[in-house]
């Protein structure tokens, strides 16, 4: 019973970590850079939904769309303000710039929403009463979250395999030089990539909001979890990020349940260290490179 509870909550948070990690990996594989403000994009997305839904009383779906659109725009701004100007600079400049951006976004979060998420919680999406599935108590909220994450992943897969824009993004990720030579407007692909990556963080935030307290400082812990997921899955693989995200969620829930709840929050860190020491290529290893 305890195990089933740990697993179902682990899978739920794991699915959300997967979504955040996929956004991070999407940008990494296309542009070659890790966005250290990805967690803050998540945070702002969550608070945008909070503003629309909790403060202004708009329907949840409007909050979802608003947060997605808002974080997409933030992603595009990241491209314009940070990525494009530094595209030829040494990689460390980009690291510093996105770290800097994370502080700016956190400051914005504190200014507009400091303390509010704790005072006025985000209401649950669906009835909070658990339902029994095969003798296991599952919260409908968890089912909604997992189903939505699955839908997002399917949409993303369709985007990459069926649409022209998705194929252009894939091509740019695999070889930007060749993409330029067929006339793909690579700069626009980068802009779209930052936008979509941020939007994925925004979607995740809208689903996380009813599950935990939103705070302006939530970004870093989300970034660490997404990191752990991507490193576990083999940096650069989106499939790996999904598997890694689920594993991080499950391991964290198990550690919190069976070892000590204080372990839960640092388990992402422990996973990062363990993978880097014992299996630096991630669980999927070299295979990871060829996948969408």
């Amino acid at each position, binding site marked *: 019973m305890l195990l089933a509870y740990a697993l179902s909550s682990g899978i739920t948070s794991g699915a959300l970590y997967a979504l955040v990690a996929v956004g991070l990996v999407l940008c990494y594989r296309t542009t070659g850079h890790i966005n250290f403000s990805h967690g803050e994009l998540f945070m702002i997305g969550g608070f945008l939904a909070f503003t629309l839904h909790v403060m202004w009383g708009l329907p949840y779906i409007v909050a979802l769309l608003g947060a997605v659109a808002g974080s997409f725009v933030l992603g595009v701004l990241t491209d314009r303000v940070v990525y494009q100007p530094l595209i030829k600079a040494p990689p460390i400049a980009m690291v510093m710039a996105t770290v800097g951006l994370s502080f700016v976004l956190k400051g914005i979060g504190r200014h507009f929403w400091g303390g509010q998420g704790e005072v006025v919680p985000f209401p649950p999406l669906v009835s909070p009463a658990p339902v029994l599935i095969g003798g296991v108590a599952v919260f409908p909220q968890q089912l909604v979250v997992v189903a939505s994450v699955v839908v997002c992943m399917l949409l993303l897969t369709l985007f990459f395999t069926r649409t022209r824009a998705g*194929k252009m993004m894939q*091509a740019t990720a*695999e070889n930007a*030089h*060749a993409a330029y*030579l*067929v006339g793909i407007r690579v700069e626009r692909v980068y802009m779209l990539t930052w936008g979509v990556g941020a939007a994925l963080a925004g979607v995740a935030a809208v689903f996380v909001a009813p599950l935990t307290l939103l705070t302006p400082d939530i970004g870093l812990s989300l970034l660490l979890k997404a990191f752990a997921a991507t490193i576990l899955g083999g940096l650069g693989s989106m499939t790996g990020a999904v598997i890694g995200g689920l594993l991080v969620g499950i391991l964290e829930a198990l550690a919190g349940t069976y070892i000590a709840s204080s372990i839960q929050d640092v388990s992402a860190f422990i996973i990062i260290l363990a993978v880097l020491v014992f299996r630096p290529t991630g669980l999927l290893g070299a295979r990871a490179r060829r996948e969408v």
Partner: protein
Amino acid sequence: MLTVRNLSVWYGLSEVLRDVSFSVPRGEVVALLGGNGAGKTTLLKTLSGLVKPRGGAVEFDERPIAGLHPHDIVTKGVIQVPQGRFVWPSMSVADNLALGAAARHDKAGIAADLERVYDFFPRLRERRGVPAGTLSGGEQQMVAIGRALMARPRILLMDEPSHGLSPRLVQEMIEVIRRLNEEGMTIFLIEQNIGVPAAVAGTTYVLANGAIAFQTHGSKVADDPEVLSSYLGGGRH
């Protein structure tokens, strides 16, 4: 059709191309020979807009194209087949070819051109669903050329098409270039391998140390002692 005048290109503090001038008339195969590090790839990158020149002019159909965005150069019909093929490895052959038309919007024309590419390279039709990265080197070169054809080239720039191919495949590549030219394609070809220009090129330039050392005819490159000596001297340093 393509005229390059006094082109100079720098990477930071080093001058890679110095005062390079040549021209490619419509319908011809013009070659440029040069050793490793002579600046051949840099020249093609400059023609395609990936590198901005510091001085000089590039004209295509009497209109300047130097310094334009690669997309705008592609839409004018100046299409490059890059060195090392650069196919998108996880994507299918069909997707690689389809993206060759990334800058076009004429759906019917694109579909017709895809059929023409498959007729030109029947092997690619057989393998169209396969990830391009799993093909042999020779097949990948066909994908790279087919992809360039999908962009509707008016001139094809080829960077070392024989690179890394076996002697038999080099012969096939020579045949491909000949067939393309017979169908009216203008080709500017860059090579280290004398065999290719010797077989297909008209005017042939020799690039050494970033400058055009001299000019000859494809049919003469094989027995011109000056060719070898100038590009043996044209190494990296």
